[in-house]
């Protein structure tokens, strides 16, 4: 920070501009210019050094409110004369702090080790024409670095030279974003072969974290010539962390180093999500804090009232010390208040935080361990990125799912195409019959329909208009890990083992489809695309420009030059984005096919082309070059040029690609709906396609009445869209909200056939109209209408969504009334925004890279795993943690209540009822393990039943176990127990001669009896709640009780030299020798558990019944 600020101060104006200038090889063109210092290539991921570890770590730990609270309590105990020794709260705090510090220290040590490994890694740098070895951390911006095959790049480099002839290199970014396919990167064109004499500067933007964006330009100074300017894009940039593949060696110039590399910038933590349970805990904490303060206040006030009576404040037998007498009355009151706070502070235990954290941390392992989540295809199981949200999985009310790759497999298969209005159906759609021959029937049929020229044009378009790479068959060894991504192609005799790699599986499907019809894409060779046509001739096309795909434009184009010299533009894209850009008379013939295909659930793309005249091309070329060189607003400028070029095309045809449903997609969706979860499908796809997918997933049933709010329905009335929107919204609202019968029981609703199910469909354009209505007043009204309609529909389909709109919708629902818990699930980069936005984000380890997984909270291999994740794991985690929290508050309430009541009998003197050892150990040793075991192992309903009866999920909906009612119940139970313990023993002690030899018991015996009853009751209460007794539960529950007994014997059996007072010496043993004590202990334990047992019995008849009912249904 400081250095950066200093730099800024010293560097003056130049540092503040948005770009940086780099001299390749430090060869400054004008020697006078000051060389700007960039940060070095040291990666520092560690937080601490040896020197600052202690203060910094302690500071970080005490910044947390809970730790700080306990520290304050501890300090009060040290400073003020308090009833309990500082050890009672200091020891647990010390324990927690130490364990955390050790853990963080260890992690930091690992980071240091990893940092060192990276920073000290030797790299080869070209310096003054010599290759020198250096530590990686010594690389400076502007150094020319050599990287060999299979090495990772030590910093962000601009590729200058590659050992491959075509100036490319291959890279995998597996460790960056998990995509293990090979990506091609290009050298900057026109750089000299001799790097020693290369004189160039690079201007580029300041470091920014987006991995896929980069703009810059390179000025190459050749002797006495005008400097040449080349644009630099992400395809020239090699990122630190990526690995060089299939290329012997490359040279690159260091651009961003150390902490300014994109990798380092990317690993800045995401904002933390907090679960609803945590919020409940905080609310309860507040209540208990109020209880604590009011207890302390009551005691303080009563103390002074009591003391004002004559003879009570300072009777002759109990005089105050001189210091006490001299203290100011108000100061004394204040310290008394603090003392009471300290005495009762155990009501908010340190150990709860530790236990909750342990439970979450350990509990999350069960997700990773679950073998049902293991997918044999990708050989991976579930991944837990955060353990904070385990219980949130049991609270989900809305699921937002992506369609492609999530509901569907994203495993595209070419189904049919339509050329010039004629349908070409590939008959052997089943992929088992692969051996498709050029001369076979279907092709002949093809030839019969449309003109041969049109047909070939269409197929050429399919072969050319894409960014697919051909996977080069590697001779040695099996193809590592890529096989599942590459899809080994059709075993076609001449092109055996041909694999295609592309960013989108549609493109692979299209290229393969073209291959079936005789046109095979052979690959790209030094900007020439090679195609093997039907006559087994190789056609060459020079690739002039790629107008890349983006989700806003929803299309992509290529500009190629054929051998004959014609310049052609091929464009493919969604129908909505192509139709307005082609001649209208061609549209109608194809639109029919496109719509039919879409309703069948296929993904359709339209293909168009146009000839570019020389002027047109020159103009486009110049425009593109200019836009690409722009440092600012490059995207917008490019978009403008794209839109300008992609006009007046002629439509050739359309393709249909099938995207199969994920395994068990329908079952999963049905289970989710049965669990009372509303499923919203958010997709960028067409409405028809999405709708058919929804039907296939049984999100929409035959009986579902669909309410459509799309551009088409808006245009129906022939009136202004705004008016129509208004009208439709009101109409739907009336139908779905006002006329719908009020919800009674959650369960009856979906199963009863009388009530009408509604499905709602909206598209991106209409959504933006709803959200950003022209008039402010309407906007909020529409929004609420829209929300109300959606909330009353069983499922909602939002199609044609841009990624940001997905997040917008999630946000809108998240912030709607009742703050429902939302879950987003998706697999692609376009789902990241909604994954981050939702309460719980789930990534699917799909084909579209690992971005979703990286940004998710949980990642699962398949959609079908969602069912178990929510219905079983989520449900169990929620029940466990809810019980854990309630139990913790309960057990500390009935722990402290007797101590509070005792104040009324000891002159409000803050005399603790229990011995310090018991006060300290109660939460740490005697009662912590059983609840931890419970909260890890409990299955109040076994997993199979949970999976079979989705409706059980509704029982815990809306934070059911942590609302005020259950909280009140637990609190009352705690109060009841506390009262019982205290007064039961109080009446026993009305005659303290409890032994058969007439000897009497004192105050410590009193406390020990209460404490024994307390420990046993609290543990047995948990035992009563435990429905799933594994050997661990048995061990821990009975072990805890045994431990308590043994500890008490031990603690009371020895005169401890370090103790000032031997309070408990033989107290426990003497207690056990008294029959009355035994009898009162048994009586009180039974009496406190009696209501619990009664409740269980009275409640039970409903339990099995409802379960039977479910079986019936």
């Amino acid at each position, binding site marked *: 920070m400081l250095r950066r600020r200093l730099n800024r101060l010293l560097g003056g104006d130049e540092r503040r501009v948005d770009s940086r200038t780099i001299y390749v090889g430090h060869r400054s063109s004008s020697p006078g210019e000051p060389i700007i210092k960039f940060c070095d290539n040291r990666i520092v991921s560690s937080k601490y050094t040896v020197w600052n570890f202690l203060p910094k770590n302690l500071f970080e730990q005490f910044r947390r409110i809970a730790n700080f609270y306990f520290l304050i309590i501890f300090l009060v105990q040290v400073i003020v004369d308090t009833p309990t020794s500082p050890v009672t709260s200091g020891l647990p705090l010390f324990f927690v702090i130490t364990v955390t510090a050790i853990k963080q220290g260890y992690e930091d040590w690992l980071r240091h080790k990893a940092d060192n490994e990276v920073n000290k890694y030797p790299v080869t740098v070209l310096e003054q024409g010599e290759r020198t070895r250096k530590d990686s951390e010594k690389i400076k911006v502007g150094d020319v670095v050599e990287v060999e095959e299979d090495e990772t790049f030590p910093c962000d480099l601009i590729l200058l030279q590659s050992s491959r002839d075509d100036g490319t290199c291959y890279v995998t970014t597996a460790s960056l974003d998990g995509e293990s396919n090979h990506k091609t990167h290009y050298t900057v064109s026109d750089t000299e072969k001799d790097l020693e004499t290369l004189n160039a500067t690079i201007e580029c933007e300041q470091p920014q974290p987006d991995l896929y964006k980069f703009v810059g330009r390179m000025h190459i100074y050749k002797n006495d010539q005008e400097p040449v300017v080349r644009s630099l894009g992400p395809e020239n940039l090699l990122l630190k962390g990526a690995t060089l593949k299939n290329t012997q060696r490359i040279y690159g110039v260091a651009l961003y180093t150390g902490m300014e590399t994109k990798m380092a910038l990317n690993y800045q933590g995401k904002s933390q999500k907090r679960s609803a349970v945590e919020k409940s805990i905080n609310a309860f904490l507040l209540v208990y804090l109020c209880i604590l303060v009011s207890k302390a206040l009551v005691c303080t006030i009563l103390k002074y009232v009591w003391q004002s009576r004559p003879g009570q404040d300072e009777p002759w037998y109990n005089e105050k010390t001189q210091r006490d007498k001299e203290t100011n009355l108000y100061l004394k009151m204040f310290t008394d208040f603090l003392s009471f706070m300290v005495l009762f502070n155990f009501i908010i235990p340190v150990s709860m935080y530790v236990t909750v954290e342990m439970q979450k941390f350990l509990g999350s392992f069960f997700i990773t361990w679950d073998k049902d989540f293991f997918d044999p295809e990708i050989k991976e199981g579930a991944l837990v990125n955060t353990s904070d949200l385990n219980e949130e999985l049991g609270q989900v009310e809305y699921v937002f799912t992506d369609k492609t790759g999530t509901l569907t497999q994203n495993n595209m298969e070419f189904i049919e195409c339509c050329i010039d209005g004629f349908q070409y159906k590939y008959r052997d759609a089943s992929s088992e019959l692969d051996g498709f021959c050029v001369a076979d029937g279907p092709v002949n049929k093809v030839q019969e329909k449309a003109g041969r020229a049109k047909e070939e044009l269409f197929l050429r378009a399919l072969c050319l208009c894409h960014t697919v790479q051909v996977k080069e068959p590697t001779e040695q060894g099996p193809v590592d890990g890529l096989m599942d991504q590459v899809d080994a192609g059709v075993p076609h005799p001449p092109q055996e083992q041909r694999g295609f790699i592309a960013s989108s599986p549609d493109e692979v499907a299209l290229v393969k489809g073209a291959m079936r019809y005789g046109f095979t894409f052979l690959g790209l060779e030094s900007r020439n695309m090679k195609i093997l046509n039907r006559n087994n001739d190789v056609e060459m096309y020079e690739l002039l420009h790629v107008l890349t795909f983006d989700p806003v434009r929803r299309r992509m184009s290529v500009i190629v030059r054929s051998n004959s010299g014609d310049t052609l533009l091929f464009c493919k894209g969604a129908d909505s984005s192509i139709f307005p850009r082609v001649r209208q008379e061609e549209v109608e013939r194809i639109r029919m096919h496109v719509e039919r295909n879409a309703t069948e659930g296929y993904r359709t793309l339209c293909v168009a082309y146009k000839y570019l005249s020389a002027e047109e091309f020159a103009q486009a070329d110049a425009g593109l070059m200019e836009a690409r060189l722009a440092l600012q607003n490059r995207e917008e400028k490019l978009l403008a040029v794209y839109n300008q070029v992609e006009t007046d095309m002629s439509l050739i045809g359309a393709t249909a690609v099938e995207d199969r449903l994920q395994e068990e997609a329908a079952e999963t969706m049905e289970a989710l709906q049965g669990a009372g979860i509303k499923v919203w499908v958010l997709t960028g796809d067409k409405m028809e396609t999405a709708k058919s997918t929804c039907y296939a997933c049984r999100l929409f049933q035959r009986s579902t009445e669909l309410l459509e709010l799309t551009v088409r329905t808006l245009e129906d009335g022939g009136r202004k869209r705004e008016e129509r929107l208004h009208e439709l919204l009101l109409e739907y609202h009336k139908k779905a909200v006002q006329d719908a019968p009020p919800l009674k029981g959650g369960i009856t609703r979906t199963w009863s056939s009388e009530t009408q199910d509604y499905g709602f469909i909206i598209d991106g354009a209409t959504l933006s109209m709803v959200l950003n209505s022209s008039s402010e007043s309407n906007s909020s009204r529409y929004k609420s209408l829209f929300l109300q309609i959606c909330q009353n529909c069983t499922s909602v389909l939002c199609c044609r969504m841009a990624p940001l709109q997905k997040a917008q919708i999630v946000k809108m629902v998240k912030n709607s009334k009742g703050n429902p818990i939302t879950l987003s699930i998706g697999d692609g980069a376009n789902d990241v925004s909604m994954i981050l936005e939702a309460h719980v984000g789930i990534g699917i380890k799909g084909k579209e890279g690992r971005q979703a997984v990286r940004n998710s909270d949980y990642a699962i291999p398949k959609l079908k795993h969602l069912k178990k994740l929510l219905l079983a794991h989520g449900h169990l985690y929620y029940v466990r943690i809810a019980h854990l929290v309630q139990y913790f508050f309960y057990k500390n309430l009935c722990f402290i209540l007797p101590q509070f009541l005792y104040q009324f009998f000891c002159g409000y003197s803050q005399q603790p009822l229990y011995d310090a050892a018991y006060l300290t150990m109660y939460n740490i040793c005697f009662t912590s393990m059983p609840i931890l075991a419970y909260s890890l192992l409990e299955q109040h309903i076994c997993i199979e039943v949970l999976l079979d009866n989705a409706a059980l999920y509704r029982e815990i909906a809306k934070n059911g176990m942590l609302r005020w009612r259950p909280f009140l119940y637990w609190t009352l139970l705690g109060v009841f127990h506390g009262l019982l313990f205290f007064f039961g023993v109080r009446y026993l002690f009305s005659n303290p001669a409890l032994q058969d030899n007439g000897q009497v018991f004192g105050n410590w015996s009193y406390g020990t009896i209460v404490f024994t009853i307390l420990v046993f009751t609290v543990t047995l209460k948990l035992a009563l709640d435990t429905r799933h007794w594994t050997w661990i539960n048995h061990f821990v529950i009975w072990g805890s009780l045994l431990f308590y007994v043994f500890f008490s014997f031990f603690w009371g059996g020895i005169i401890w030299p370090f103790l000032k007072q031997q309070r408990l010496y033989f107290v426990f043993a003497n207690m056990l020798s008294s029959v009355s004590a035994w009898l009162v202990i048994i009586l009180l334990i*039974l009496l406190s558990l009696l209501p619990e047992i009664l409740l269980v019995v009275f409640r039970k008849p409903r339990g099995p019944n409802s379960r039977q009912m479910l079986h019936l249904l």
Partner: protein
Amino acid sequence: MMASSYNAKDEDGHITVTGPGGGAVLRSKKPENTAFKQQRLPAWQPILTAGTVLPAFFIIGLLFIPIGIGLFVTSNNIKEFEIDYTGADTSSPCFNCSQNFSWNSTSPCTCTVPFYLEQPYESNVYVYYGLSNFYQNHRRYVKSRDDSQLNGNLKSLREPSKECEPYAYHNNKPIAPCGAIANSMFNDTLELFYNDPNGTSVKILLGTTGIAWWTDKHVKFGNPGGVDSNLSAVFQGTTKPLNWRRPVYELDSDQSNNGFVNEDFIVWMRTAALPTFRKLYRIIGKSSQMVPTLPRGNYTLEVVYNYPVRSFEGRKRMILSTISWMGGKNPFLGIAYITVGSVCFFLGVVLLVIHHKCGNRNNGAEISN
């Protein structure tokens, strides 16, 4: 709060550095198929139903009621006699003593309280003194002692712990035993006389041993310098607690009941739980099988009135009690057991009725399924 300390994200979020050359390592870790990891540990799944709980209710009822009756009868059979000798009323024989009390008076004030025992006390009789509104459990009071000194530690004898303040030093001499508890030791002397019907009054022998916990007397408390030391020499250089009339080594003539191991002292040092309490004072041993320990008749309690309680509105009592296996007289346990037992039994009956009715319905439903 402490969330991030165990945060998995925290660990994963940091830069994962793949060593160069380490390319994409396939993580193909298939989860182990163990019962624990798959949450399939064999488990006992008890379900509490009316059927399983009902017998428990009846058993509890059937067990508790007899125990309760036994306790109640036992408690009722215990004979207890209590007499208040505070001297708060003018009519009370000890009124004068309580009125004219002064710490400095050298001549002890004595008062005699006559009483009549309506029943003979057959077995051992335990004599207690009881105090009311005396906060022995006040925090300042409870901690005002030095267990190390009481255990016989010579160093602590010379330098009493700070906790004993303001009863640690007097005239720069350490107080032995120090602290408020010791200082306020009950020092009334109670003596019992049986007034024979033929006019003679017989002094009743009061046993002074066996009133304190054995472990207290033999382990927790110990005289400095060991068992056989010359106490007056050992306690040289210390001073007696302010309110005491005699130094600690003159509490009893019996060497084994003198100094810190004096049982009266040990009993007093075990602080009471509640402001109204009793402490064992003496034991009247049964002398022979034939004669009751305390026959029916007139008695006199002779009190050497040394202990002022009226300044804090306290009360003093003398209690005579026999003892049973459950200790002193206390009807609470018996009543509680009878109540709980009856409630359980009653609930059992109610549950049985409900269960019988509902059970039929339930069964019907199951059959129809």
